[in-house]
């Protein structure tokens, strides 16, 4: 059972990394415009 003392922070840390990645993506504007990328798909550059 003492493994929990170790596993709990690890689980939170892993989850936290994903949450942080998501927040960073939102802040960098990746979710601002969900309609545009399909229109741009065929551009060459």
């Amino acid at each position, binding site marked *: 059972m003492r493994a929990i003392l170790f596993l709990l922070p690890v689980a939170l840390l892993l*989850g936290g990394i994903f949450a942080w990645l998501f*927040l960073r993506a939102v802040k960098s504007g990746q979710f601002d415009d969900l309609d545009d990328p399909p229109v741009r798909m065929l551009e060459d550059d």
Partner: protein
Amino acid sequence: MEGAADAFCCGGCEAAHAIIHGAGLDRWYAERTAYAPRPEPLAGWWDAVPVETGADGACTVHLAVDGLRCASCVWLAEHVLQATPGVRDAHVSYATGRATLRWDPAATDLPALARRIAALGYRPRPLTEAASPDRGLLLRLGVAAFVAMNVMLLAASVYAGWWGGMDPAFAALFRWTTLALATPVALWCAAPFYQGALAGLRHRRLHMDLPVSLGLVLLYGHGLAATLRGHDGYLDSMVMLVTLMLAGRVLESRGRRRALEAATALAGSAPRTARRVAGDTVETVPVAALAPGDLIDVGPGEELAADGVVTQGAGQVRLALLTGESEPVAVEPGRRVVAGALLADGALTVRVEATGQDTMLQRMARELERAADRSLRPTAADRLAPWFTAATLALAALAFGGWYLAAGLDTAIMTTVAVLVVACPCAIALSQPLASAAGLGAAARRGLLFRSTDALLTLNDVTEVALDKTGTVTEGELAVVRADDATLRLAAGLERHSSHPIARAILAEARRRSIPLPRATDVRETPGRGVEGILDGGRHALRSGGPGVVELTGPAGVVGRIELADQVRADARHAVAALERLGLRVTLLTGDRAEVAERIGREVGVRSLHAGMTPDAKAAWVRARQRAGARVLVAGDGLNDGPALAAADVGVAMGTGAASSVLVADGVIAGDGIMPLVGAVRAARACERAILANQRRSLLYNGVAVTAAFAGLINPLVAVCLMPLSSGIVIWGALGVERAVRRDEAAA
């Protein structure tokens, strides 16, 4: 074109430039650029634009940009801006018509950038709305969802510990971890609800955020107190509640933003300046300075700035914006033209009759804005939720008071929390969205994509269907109906380089029959009249030979005739019959002539039809039917259907139609045909049945469970276990929607 000299987005644009250049019309570009220091709309508006200054000193601004016609326009605008010295980053969105610019204030400024955009022929203007507010919501949702998942795991172990026994030290660790995780959710993620509740209180209104906020505060307060005293709180329920409600908010704000943008884009699509004739000279004035009675000059490729009557000149006007008919219409003195129409060729002098807010275009824009407001209409769940939660809170208060007097504070708190948790409107809040999502999915698999669940639910109440003709019941493109190969060969040779709709139809048919095209020389195309040239050693000409017919004449007179028509969609007849079997009255609305409408009506089996209708008349017809008690579904493809789509209870646009009609509609048909309408009606009906059944189930559950909790028969732990059970019942009910639709289809 300034520094962008050879940066063409595509062959088409390059060719267009070559044509303009070749025709000696470079002056046109010069004139457009000269519009830059326009007196009225352009000068000074940038003072009102909020410029954000970042930590690195760079300025950021969000602008609306009008006149972006294709993805290539976006490419061009973006690349020219990025190549401008001082610009760090430029992003232009096609879907929303917005530009985000980041620049170094030392090297350039906003007016210079705005002029740069204007020089490309696009019109920058301030956004009427603050920069997207749902970024904040999304951040809150992300945090809440992360916490919810972890807290759920912790809670599951804690509850399991009630039976299996748990080391008190671990139980305490889990409780404190839960509290640590839940605290930011209660304080930060749920802040929008508190703000909404406070704003409602200030305006003395029972906002639905108020009971929600009270519930959240109570749950968190109890959880905090319980953790401090070494008991279990119900923070997991609180976190889950916040997460689900935030998810709802995010989806809602997305839909609302798109509707608003469609309306503002149309309002901004009219030109800002006009060339007014003053005696012998022509001066460029802002549209606001025009008055009825003024004369304005309109050149090729320009949009009309006001409604009026042609006094001089001739040309072809493209009215696609207003009528949805893509074919240019020939105009001559005496004809009425409207603002927003594009002069395809020729030159006109127009006597102004209506300007600004009185033009057809602005009237349509107002209709669209009304449609945007409509998307703010609360859903059935929104209407129900405050009452439900208020009742729950009242019950909880009653339980607290009663048990406090009867058995003391601790029992009172436990009972109150049990009532709050067990009555958590999760099942009711979920019953509608889940069934709707299943209904939306069922409709989407049949080809109709709805923007909101509300539209799908409204579809149930619809009693009649109004179909636009061009592009909805018909393909929207001319096609050759009858022609012999010899005539077609010569006609196609003449039309080889034309892009006129009739030419396209003839060329497509010739290609289909694999007819090799002869080479025509000395080809002359007279807009609105026809085309002539030398073919097979003789002069041939192609002219109109009455409605829907073109005549080919050779040196010795008429050689042959080609009949063209707008083809009825293959599934139209079947779809109309199916709609009528579902008990819906089908009407055909069209701006076209009565005889064409009647022919199409006979072909698809529609008995009720109205021909010669303007966009306003279509909307007026819809409203008249609504006053008579009908609920109307309108399906159309052009912007001309915008007012009718907006007035309709449910507006459905063709995915191939004008972009703005797609944005203003409640739903979009993906692909060809109108059969998806039938599938959607079936899906909506199955969905409604599922929702009613779900609501009955969850009300029953809540009724029984709340009564039991109220009576002190349920402790909070049992309540927490019951909650997912009720949600499970609701999920199971929602899964039946697709099956029910298939059953209906098999039966039909």
